[in-house]
């Protein structure tokens, strides 16, 4: 099971995402932003970081990278894609997911171990969780506020496409405490928190994040 991890200039958590894939039992495949080729991977992770320095808007330039051409096509065709933090921003800019991410309402970067609730265990990336399960995963961002108009928000809620929600104090002003969403089909998921930093004991607040990666591998096996 080969999972591609894209590196844009400025990507930071690509190494960590690759490590998480390995821990989950998969084979990480490094995908270069400038290479318009997915190399036949079974799933793709767009990692966290500051691609292009967050110039213009987070993810605004990365979404036009050559690799995004085949990625968008493959995603529309059902390829599992997980966008983490900056990756989530890229997915929104690329219109694979609705809404946008704006500056935290506190205007401060926040790094903390965040309580979350998995509200949809039916997506490609959350199959190993139970519906309503509470987990702890690190959150670290300056531009993590999820916003969308009411129509979009109602649609997401109504269709069960809010995948993960913040529990406790809202850390960044995200509307409806939304921490992660999916597309209609459930193969594309955007997440603000960083599951790749909760896959190894000691090096994170626990291992709750690992199941995001084992979920997609299970899905690939049974596909």
């Amino acid at each position: 099971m080969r999972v591609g991890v894209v590196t844009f200039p400025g990507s930071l958590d690509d190494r960590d995402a690759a490590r998480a894939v390995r821990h989950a039992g998969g084979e990480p495949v490094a995908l270069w932003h400038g290479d318009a080729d997915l190399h036949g991977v079974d799933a793709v992770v767009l990692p966290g970081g500051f691609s292009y320095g967050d110039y213009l808007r987070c993810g605004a330039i990365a979404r036009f990278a050559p690799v995004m051409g085949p990625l968008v096509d493959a995603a529309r065709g059902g390829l599992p894609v997980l966008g983490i933090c900056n990756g989530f921003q890229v997915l929104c800019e690329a219109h694979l997911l609705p809404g946008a991410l704006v500056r935290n309402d506190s205007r401060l970067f926040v790094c903390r171990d965040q309580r979350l609730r998995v509200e949809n265990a039916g997506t490609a990336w959350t199959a190993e969780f139970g519906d309503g399960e509470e987990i702890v995963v690190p959150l670290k961002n300056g531009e993590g506020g999820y916003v969308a108009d009411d129509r979009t928000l109602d649609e997401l809620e109504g269709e069960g496409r809010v995948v993960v929600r913040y529990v406790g104090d809202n850390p960044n002003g995200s509307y409806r405490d939304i921490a992660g969403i999916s597309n209609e089909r459930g193969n594309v998921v955007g997440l603000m928190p960083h599951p790749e930093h909760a896959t190894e004991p000691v090096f994170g607040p626990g291992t709750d994040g690992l199941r995001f990666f084992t979920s997609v591998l299970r899905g690939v096996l049974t596909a």
Partner: protein
Amino acid sequence: MGRVVVDVMPKPEILDPQGKAVAAALSRLGFDHVTGVRQGKRFELEVPGEVTDEVLAEARKAAETLLSNPVIEDVVRVAVADEAP
């Protein structure tokens, strides 16, 4: 050589924490008559020749494709830079 100015502002319904912070700071500094602030972006695009209507149309397309995110921003002005406001 010509220049096109593009102004991008956050949509009215979008929370603008930076604008809010700027307004609070102005108030603290005694600029009491300012009741609200919204913070946007201004781009200056350099073009080789004169700024024609075609050039402006291209600039608007560029603004809508890359310079702004239509989900949260509006392109509020696309104009020749030399036109004084």
